[in-house]
């Protein structure tokens, strides 16, 4: 699919516990998302620059992500390669690094962008609880049209385009005690969209 410009939510803050590498996808680009020791949110292409193995099957060691295949290590923040175990005495070239995308955490959601000029994700000023992400087998546009036609009260919703015919609904609820109720409403929306797309 064509890359959509601008910021999109790709995870919830809760999806990034220490030591976990979170797998996401935005506009066909697979992403490895993880938190450094100082809280830095790293959004990297899910692909080791060495042999192309997914970073998301690797592991976190302190402030570094270690690739599962040859144990090359990449530093939080810069994405620079810091160690190549097969060459223990040689300092890795500064040209070896993960492909980075910007990562911004705001209102409990983690945002990134693949392209575009906007400096930051939208400022919501919306204190709320993060809804469970709902993946839907339909286009992002179909979800956006459905949400615009029949807005759900008490929530702010965003759409993460995953691939041409898949997208994830993310959002915030005003009232944390209504999370289950909103979840059921979003599941109904998902079923309706998928029936229409089938």
């Amino acid at each position, binding site marked *: 699919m064509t890359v959509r410009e601008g910021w999109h939510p790709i995870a919830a803050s*809760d999806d990034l*516990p220490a*030591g*976990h590498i*979170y*797998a996401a*996808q935005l506009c066909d680009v697979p992403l490895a998302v993880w938190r450094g020791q100082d809280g830095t949110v790293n959004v990297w292409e899910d692909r080791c620059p060495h042999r192309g193995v997914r970073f998301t099957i690797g592991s*976190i060691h302190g402030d570094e992500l270690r690739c599962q295949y040859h144990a090359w290590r990449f530093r939080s923040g810069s994405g620079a390669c810091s160690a190549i175990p097969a060459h223990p005495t040689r300092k890795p070239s500064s040209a070896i690094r993960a492909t980075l995308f910007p990562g911004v955490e705001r209102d409990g959601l983690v945002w990134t962008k693949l392209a575009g000029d906007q400096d930051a994700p939208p400022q919501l000023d919306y204190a709320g609880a993060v809804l*469970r*992400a709902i993946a839907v087998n339909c286009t992002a546009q179909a979800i956006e049209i459905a949400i615009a036609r029949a807005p759900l009260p008490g929530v702010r919703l965003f759409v993460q385009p995953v691939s041409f015919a898949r997208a994830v609904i993310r959002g915030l609820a005003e009232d944390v005690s209504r999370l289950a109720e909103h979840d059921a409403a979003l599941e109904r929306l998902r079923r309706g969209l998928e029936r229409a797309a089938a």
Partner: protein
Amino acid sequence: MILYDYPPLAECYAVRLLAALLDVPLEIRSLDYYPGREHETDEYLDIAPLGSVPALDTGTAVLGDWQAALIHLAAHHDATGQWLPLGDPDRLVAIHEWLAVARALAHSAGVARLHELIGQPAVIERCRTEAHRLLRHLERHLWFGERAGRRWLVEGEQPTIADIAVFVQVILCEEGGVSRLDYPAVRRWIDSVRGIRGFVVTSGVLPLDPTAPVHTLA
């Protein structure tokens, strides 16, 4: 105890995994399930009349159902009683619900995987659609469980055989073309299971790095 085993099968892995966690030694008899179809031979049908794999010979009976084997191991070889809390009817019922989901996953995600691995006939798209329906159910349960302070499938501080039965199906599902991308709470629960002391791997399963920190929900 003798386990009649075909290593690639998730159901065989379940029995080996629980036996390892309980520190129960198994005598493994490997079957040439594919391409030899040894489970259809007269010799094997004399042992396990339905030709089921795995089969667990407990010394007093041959259990031809993998979940029966899990129940046997937990009921007889777990001094702590954590894996199958026989004295707690509500948790037993909840365990049974998840064993049913595990079986449904075997018949969908598992069949899709065997289709990819050894060419077993399958209506592959239907299998994958059904697997995703089950994974969505699992994801919702685990996500709300995290918010309620519940780490395992069934209420309680410790994992049960329900976690083992569902885990072996879910951890291998991507080999059948069923992606776990949409299921972040399932992936965190997978890490919890891999972090259980005594956890063993099988082909296609990576160990949780022992030097990595324990995961906790912020």
